[in-house]
Every structure is written in C-alpha cells, then in structure tokens.
C-alpha cells in the first residue's frame, strides 16, 4: 500500500520532470532546424516559474480557474495510469480504454476554462481542437483496438510484459505502429495539425485569455502531454519500460519524431486535417488491423 501511494506521488513528478526535458528538446530541435541556438537548459522551468510569479493576474471566473486545475490535475491523475520501469501505479485498474478517456478530462477542463473567458477566439480554438480530436481519435481507436486485440488485453502492464517476452509490437504490427505514429502528431497538437492555436489568426485560440499562472498551468500541461504521448506509444509498440535508460531513450526518440516533422510544416486547415486523418492513417490502421486479426 505504501509503495503504491509513493508511486502515485512519484509518477506524476517523474512525468513532469521528463516532460520539461521533452519541451526543452522540442524547442532545441526547433531552434536547430532553424539554425538557431535555442533556449538555455532550464528555460522550460524558468518560463513556468515566471508565469507563476506574476503579481497582477486576472481571472474570468471560477470556471476559468477550475479549467486550469482540471487540466493539470487530470494529467497528474492520468500519469499514474501509465506504467514506467519499476512503477505500475494503478495501470492495472484502468487499462488503455480508460486511459484514452482519462486523457480527455484535461482537455475538457481546459475547454470549460476557455469557455468562461468569454473570448470568441478561445471558443473558436476549442471548436477546432475538438474537431481535431474527432479527426485523430478515429485512427487512434483503430490502433488501440488492433493493439489490444493483438496482446489480448487492455491492461498496459500486461502489454509490456507480453512485449518483453515476445518482442516489440512495432515488429509484429508495423503498419499499425505507423498509423499510430501518424496520429501521435495529432495527439501532440503540433504542426501541421495546430490550426486550433493559429497565433496570427485567432491569437493562440484556447490560450488567448490565459496569462500568469493560467498560462503556467498550460505549460505544465504541455510537459505532461509530451510525456504521455511518448510513454503511451512506447508502451503500445516499443516494449514499454524495461529499465530507465532504455525507456528514456525510447520515449525521447518517439517524441522527437513528431517534433521534427512539425518544424518542417506549415499547418493544415481543419477540413484538410480531417480529410488527411480520416484517409491515410485510417487506411493504414485498417490494413494493420486486418493483418493483426486475420
């Protein structure tokens, strides 16, 4: 019991730290691709501290606050559902389906908070973000189905065990893994699928009224988001965590791929994103599914 509670506290903390490094990696990769130096090592943390140390901050109401709490808190809770080397948390109590829906809680919280800001730019951003979710979740659930079917379980711990005994999922279902990678781009909300942010058009959409610790909360959320995406993909396809060094390597590599793609693309319009997401990854997913289930 004590171990479990320790894990429950430790897992989000580890996730946050790793997530910060991932954010740093993203910014560094972006900078290097643009032939810049990029931010200093502690920049992600410094940004968060700065945001939280603002002296005059405005709130648009209780729901605005609760939105941020839900966004951060939801991710904190979700991290305990993701098994990492040595720590399973409560991964066996939910499984992949529960996790998928758990990950919607932070988004929903954010959406509520943004809604209360009474800024149409934010609402437009949320409408686009939700549409994007509709776009990438369809191939994503195909992938989830195929993976769960293949491993015969929805329990992430079991999946990891299976892969460590029988080889990585990416070897056995390469096409599904490809489709999964594609959707990862959408899940992480990076270019070319970040029309919902669109800084020059709708002033960063959901973030338009977020300043101070509100924005700081969103920066924390972003760290969690990167971590979650990386760990999830690793758990599904790359054998999960055997030990920390390989695990870290895997998740950083996983996250770096969408980021590298992101900095080479402009963005798609919402409808084009829908078409793209509903076409290629879905086709790949279905083929992969057919191969898995045949």
């Amino acid at each position: 019991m004590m171990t479990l509670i320790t894990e429950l506290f430790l897992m989000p903390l580890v996730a946050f730290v790793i997530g910060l490094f991932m954010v740093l990696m993203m910014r560094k990769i972006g900078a290097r691709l643009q032939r810049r130096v990029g931010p200093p090592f502690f920049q992600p943390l410094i940004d968060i501290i700065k945001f939280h140390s603002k002296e005059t901050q405005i709130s648009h109401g209780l729901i605005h606050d609760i939105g941020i709490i839900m966004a951060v808190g939801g991710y904190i809770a979700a991290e305990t559902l993701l098994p990492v080397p040595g720590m399973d948390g409560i991964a066996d109590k939910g499984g992949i389906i529960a996790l998928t829906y758990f990950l919607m809680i932070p988004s929903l919280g954010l959406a509520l908070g943004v809604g209360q800001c009474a800024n149409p730019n934010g609402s437009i951003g949320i409408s686009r973000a939700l549409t994007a979710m509709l776009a990438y979740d369809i191939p994503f659930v195909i992938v989830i189905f195929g993976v769960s079917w293949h491993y015969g379980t929805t329990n992430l711990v079991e999946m990891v065990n299976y892969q460590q005994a029988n080889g990585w999922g990416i070897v056995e279902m390469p096409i599904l893994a490809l489709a999964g990678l594609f959707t990862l781009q959408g899940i992480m909300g990076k270019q070319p699928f970040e029309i919902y942010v669109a800084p020059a058009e709708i002033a960063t959409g959901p973030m338009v009224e977020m300043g101070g610790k509100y924005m700081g909360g969103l920066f924390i959320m972003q760290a969690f988001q990167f971590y979650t995406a990386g760990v999830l993909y690793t758990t599904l396809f790359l054998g999960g965590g055997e030990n920390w060094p390989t695990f870290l390597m895997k998740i950083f590599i996983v996250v770096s791929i969408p980021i590298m793609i992101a900095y080479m693309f402009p963005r798609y319009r919402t409808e084009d994103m829908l078409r793209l997401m509903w076409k290629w990854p879905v086709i790949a997913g279905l083929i992969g599914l057919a191969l898995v289930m045949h």
Partner: protein
Amino acid sequence: MTLLDGLILLALISVLVTMLGYRLPVIGWLTSALFAGQLLVLFLMSGLGYGGDTIHSSVALSIFGQPLSWRFDALSWFFALITIGAALASSLFAAGEWGRQYRQNGGNPGLLQFSLALNVLTMLILLASGDLLALFIGWELVSWASFLLMAMAGGAAFSWAMRYITYATGGAMAILAGMGMVYQMTGSLQYADLMAVAGQLSQAQVVILSLLFGSGFAIKMGVLPFHLWQAGAYAETPGPGTAFLGSISSRMGLYGILVVLVQLIGLGRLIEIDISFTWLSLRDLLMWVAAITIILPTFTALRQNDARRLLAWHGVGQGGYMLLGIFSATALGSSGGLMHVFNHATYQAALFLSVYAVVHRTGTADLNKLGGLVTRMPLSFLVMLVGIIGLAGIPPMNGFVSKWLVYRSLLIEGMPLLFVASVIGTLGTILSVYKLIHNMFLGQLRAEHSEIREAPWSMMLPMLVLSLIVFITGFMPGLALDWVAAAQAAVGLPVLQHSLGGVEMEQGGLDMTWLVAVLFAGFGIGALLFYSTGKTRHVNQLDNYAGGHFLTADVRYHYSDHFYAGLMHRIGHWYRESFQWLESVLISLTGFVAQGASGFYRIVQPALLMLVVVVLALWVVR
C-alpha cells in the same frame, strides 16, 4: 394482494388523484408525494434487484380464451425504478415555481402531472406484463399515454405528436402481426410456450418474428430508420415532460426487445442466422443498425441550434449503445447496455431539467441567444456539467462505465468496426455537448440576462439529486451493476461478475473507485498548485483581448453559431437528409394513391360502374 398489486394500485390512485384534482395549486406536490410513495413500494420490492423471486400479481384474467397475467421480475423492477425515479424528478421539478409560471403562461400544470402519472401507470403495466397479450396491451397504453404528454403543449407539439403516433401505431401493428404469428405457431401467447418452441422455429420464422417485433419495439426507441419523429416530439413537450420522456419513455422499446428478442426467442437463434451475400448474421445486422443509430443521430444533434432538440437527438443516439451492448450477448456488453439505460436516464433527466431551468429563467432554449449564464445559474451549470460528462461517456461519471463495458465487450468479441463506430459516436457527442454547455453557460453573458437568478430550490433539488446519482454510480458502479446483474439473470443473459468499483478481469478490468479517487487527488494537487501561487483578480467579461478593440456591453463578443465550421466544411455535405426525403416520398406516394382512391368516388358513373362490376364479378367467378 401482493406488493405488485399495491404498486399498480398506488399508480392508479395517483392517476385518479391527478385527474380529479388537476386544478389544485398543490397538485404538483401531491403527485410528487404519490410518486415517492410508489418509489417506496418499489424499494419494498427491492429484493428483486438483488436476485429475489418474481412477484406475481394476484390479478389474472382470461379474455377470449387468452389468459392474461402480470408479474415483476428483476428486469421489470430495474426499469420501474428508473421510470418512477424519472417521474418523481420531473414531477418535483414542475411542482413549485415552474408550475406557477407554466400556469401563468396559459399552460395546465395539473394536466402535466396527470400525464406523468398516467405514463407511469401504463409503463408499470407494461413492465409487469406476464404474457405477450398483456405486453401488447401495456405497449399500446404506453404509446398513447406518451402521445398525451407530447401533444399537451399544443401548437407545434401537435404535428410532432401526430408524427409520433403514426410511427408508434406502425410499430404497434408490427408487434400485433408478430403476436398473430406467434399465436399461429404456438397456439398461445404465453411467454413459456414461445420459449419452449423458440428452438424449433425455422430460420425464416425467426427472421420474420425478429424483424416484426424488433422493428415494432425499435420505433419507440427511434432506432434508424424510424428515428425522425423522436427529437421533435420530445423537444416540444413541456419541460419536465421532456425530461421524463427523454430519460425513460423510449427505453420501453428496449424492454420489449429484451423480453421478446432476448428472453423469448434468444439471441442465440439470431446469431445462427446468416444473411445471404454478406458475412453478417442477423444479430450482426442488428448490431450494425444500432451502430448507425449511434452515429447518425449524434451527428444530427451536432447541428441543432436548440438545446432541447440537441439533447433529444442524443437520446436517440444513446439508444444505440444500449442495443449494441445487449445484442453483443456477452455478460460485459449486455450489462453495459442495461446499465446505460439507468445511466442515460439519470444524466438525460438532469440535462433536460437544467436546460429547462435556463428556459424557465431566460425564456429561450436557442443556443444562439444564450451564453455566460454560469455566473448567474452556477448550480444549473454544475448539473449540466455533470450531465454532459455522463452523456459524453468521460470518467468520472456513470456514462463512462456503461460505455466502457460495451467497448470492452466489442474488443473481446473482435468487432473492430463496431468499436470504431461507437467511439465515433462518443466523439461526436463530446463535440456536441461542449457546444451545448458553451453556448448556454460559457462565453459572454448577454446584457438582458445580467439580472437572472438561479432556479428556485424546488427545481434545483431534483437536478442536484440526479447529478449526485450520476456521480455516485460512476464512482461506485457496483451499486447499479448489482441490479443489472439481476436483470441479466432474469432475461437469461450471461451474468456479469462485478465488484463495487467495476469489473475485475485478468485482461484489463476497470476499477472506478480507484480511478476516480486518483483523479480527484490529482485535481487536489492541481488546485494546491494553482491556489498557492499568485493572487488573481476577477474582471469583467469586457476586459478581454480583442486585438486592442474596446469592447462595450452592446457589442456581442461571442462565438455560437455554426460552432463547428471547420468540421462542417468537411462533412456538411454528407447531411443528405435522406431519411427525411424517404419519409416525404412515402407520404407523397400514399397521398397519390389516396388521391386515386378517393377519385374513385368522385368520378365513377353509377350505371357504368355496376355494369363493369357485374362483368368483372362473373369473369372472376368463371
């Protein structure tokens, strides 16, 4: 006199009291008390919900040689619980200030209470039916009682109620035909006799029976392609009536399907039957119908600009999950389907009531004419928030649990496309409910709504209780799963082994108690982080980024219309309204034929006609 007799008698008394006392100002409270009494009797029968013996009614008739009997088993009890609970919530909602305002606006709250009582009575009769004849009698009674509730508002409600009753009669006639066939096959209308011969029926007979009964009952659920009537008919019903109808009325169709298709004929028979030229069995076909019922109405809901319509369309779509779960015929899936009946009733009632609380204060349910009400009606917002989380099937509310069970069973059964279809439905629901809560409660508060107050406690009470149930059964789904398991046993489905927190399985179970506890712990940490740093100041909504523009109260700075513009760019042209078209074609065709038929009476020359008739008659006889 058994408890069942007592229950139905009490329901009858409620009807009589409301009929005689509909002018009394306290009739709402009186009816609520009577419903509470019914609920109490139902609790006395609660042994049923935990696997107790069937309770028979002491009333038994024999008409035209057909014995009629009534009884309550676990399934009936489960549905009755939802029915009376929904009626109690609706009635309580209408009892106080809502009823007064309704009366001022020319409505008749007593009639509403009477309709509610009548609906409950008829539903109890239906649920208690112990043979096919009693089932049909109950079915028709329910249909017409709902008709009364739908039509009582007048105006636009009339045409929708007409549409409903036309569909409903069509359904009833299909059931009647099915009953006639059963009678022809077994020589009786008893459940036991049909169950006994179900194994020997030929495939063709099973197909015809399932289609007749299935479509008959499905019409009440609004399953495609019989879905066109429902949303409008429900939306036009006066407030609490909508909540009642939306939460339970259409589920009577599901009860019928459970009794006839699942219990009597048996899903096993449906699985055996292959449909030519496809890979599908009859059961699979029905599952696909259910899946399409999830998707199309959900995405129709997405386009609605009226909160009531939007929710009513979701009601249609959610029925698909129930069917999908039940037709999966597994312990997991069917428990998901059954539990969704309960869950849907709770959150749908909460949602409708909160919408009507807003309508009560603002006078409109138009999603383009509201906004920002969260500061004025925070409790209604809370109720709606709980409701939409439930409706969208996101943890920690109960809607997630039942949907999870359905997903999980589809996963185990290896039905990827149905799985994807059901998830698409959920995604569509999320989009649509966000639009609902955003356009009503979030965004900019309109100047004319700045003085609005929260709904009175008589309306808040049922809403809050309902949302509490939504949360608690999400936190501890085992509470509801006990009843579901008993109901499963009653209709002969495999019974789900469950715990208080959900399902324990080696291949990935679900323990909501843990998940929810951790989730709230996470929120707690988030709140700690948030509130421990930096002071904030609450500002007016006009202090807002608008690219440097000065916002003033007379400028509407709000995004509501055409909410998912990008999505509609992509899928907008997929809305072909084919079913509308089909319906109108059918009506036109009937009109055309009818024109010809009545033309016969306008233009026929009597003498010539007689000559023709004689010649034809003689020719036929030859």
